[in-house]
């Protein structure tokens, strides 16, 4: 891979896919086929019609990939939309990312926004941004800080799940974040500002601002002040 040539586009250009070392697009660029490279960087806007496979991918502008993305490191400060699936070891999102299929990875660090139409699977999911997962959000550790707007997830599952509310950046602006979920399941679950149908876990603590229809727990259950839990059952 490292003997391959660099590809640099300044202004406006188009290139076929193939194997490259570094690909940098400043301005506007189109890649018409599958691309494999060690580094993919976009400062302006770019579009890839095929799959993109890269060591590091950094997007400062706007990028659209029509098919799959596979990478070790992904950093997005602008916007990235992926037409099929994403398999990314370490993801850092400061801008916004849109994935039409499944997202798999190791670590996801989200401060911008992320929309995934399929499932999202990672070992660690840390967010203080906004997310919408239409399938299952599955991670060992799910740590969510709700700063603004409403995040949505169909199902959430993992070992440790912690959802906390956090004020917006600006003082005096009363702006809170919320989470809406169908099912939340984990060994240790702590929730705030969350609306959910069912929460299941070994140890479940429901904090302020929550509206939960049903909690099923094995060992410990606590509903803190300012929360509403319609029904709770001890299992086993």
């Amino acid at each position, binding site marked *: 891979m490292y003997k391959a040539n660099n590809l640099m586009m300044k202004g406006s250009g188009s290139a076929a896919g193939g194997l490259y070392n570094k690909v940098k697009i400043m301005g506007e660029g189109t890649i018409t086929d599958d691309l494999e490279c060690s580094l993919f960087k976009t400062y302006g806007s770019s579009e890839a019609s095929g799959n993109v496979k890269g060591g590091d991918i950094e997007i400062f502008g706007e990028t659209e990939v029509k098919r799959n993305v596979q990478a070790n490191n992904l950093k997005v400060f602008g916007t990235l939309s992926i037409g099929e699936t994403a398999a990314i070891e370490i993801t850092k999102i400061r801008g916004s990312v849109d994935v039409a299929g499944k997202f798999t990875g190791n670590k996801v660090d989200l401060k911008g926004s992320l929309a995934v139409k399929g499932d999202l699977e990672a070992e660690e999911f840390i967010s203080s941004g906004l997310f919408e997962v239409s399938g299952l959000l*599955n991670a060992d550790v799910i740590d969510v800080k709700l700063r603004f707007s409403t995040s949505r997830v169909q199902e959430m599952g993992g070992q440790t799940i912690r959802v906390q509310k956090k004020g917006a950046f600006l003082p005096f602006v009363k702006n809170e974040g919320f989470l809406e979920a169908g099912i939340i399941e984990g060994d240790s679950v702590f929730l705030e500002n969350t609306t959910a149908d069912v929460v299941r876990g070994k140890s479940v603590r429901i904090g302020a601002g929550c509206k939960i229809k049903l909690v099923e727990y094995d060992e410990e259950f606590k509903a803190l002040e300012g929360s509403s839990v319609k029904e709770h059952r001890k299992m086993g």
Partner: protein
Amino acid sequence: MSNELISKKDLLDLTGISYGQLYRWKRKDLIPEEWFIRKSTFTGQETFFPKEKVLERIDKIQSMKETLSLDELAERLSPSSSAMMELSRKELLKRNIVTNVSLELYAKENGTAEEFQFEQLLELFILDKLLSSGDISLDEGRMILQVLQEGRGRLNKSKHELLLIRKLGVTSCLLVAGAENIMVDQGSRVTVMLSVESCIEELKTNL
């Protein structure tokens, strides 16, 4: 195999595993996606599993996870990964993975080889399994080999079923992807119905 389902709650109760473990195993593909069956119940959506299969799988994972890492386990259990597995002829016989009869038949069809790649091993394994069960004749074995070799490279991508149908003493061999229900006319008899996926799994545990 029965079609009985078990709910996620009951499964965790019965096996003593935690949510964290179940979700981790799902992520590692130790429990296949298709086994997670979502159904509406009065509490909203619930997940169910095919009882027999999932209990057997969890048992397997629990007994092997002491000695193997999760990634190694995934390698063993998932049919789509067939990483570098190569065995020599001698090794195969010594470890009783296949019998000499099937090896000879295989050699007759494909020429003698000393080393076997995973795909070849699989063909050999299926042939041997059927031959030693007494369900097929040598001629039919040859036919099966042909069909399997035609489908080579596709076998571990999706679920395939190997079928052998006899009518009036004539045998046809079919390799079907995604066969749930197969109907045949009255004069025909399905002599063999074998899931390639389970063969891959079985072979991997033997290797």
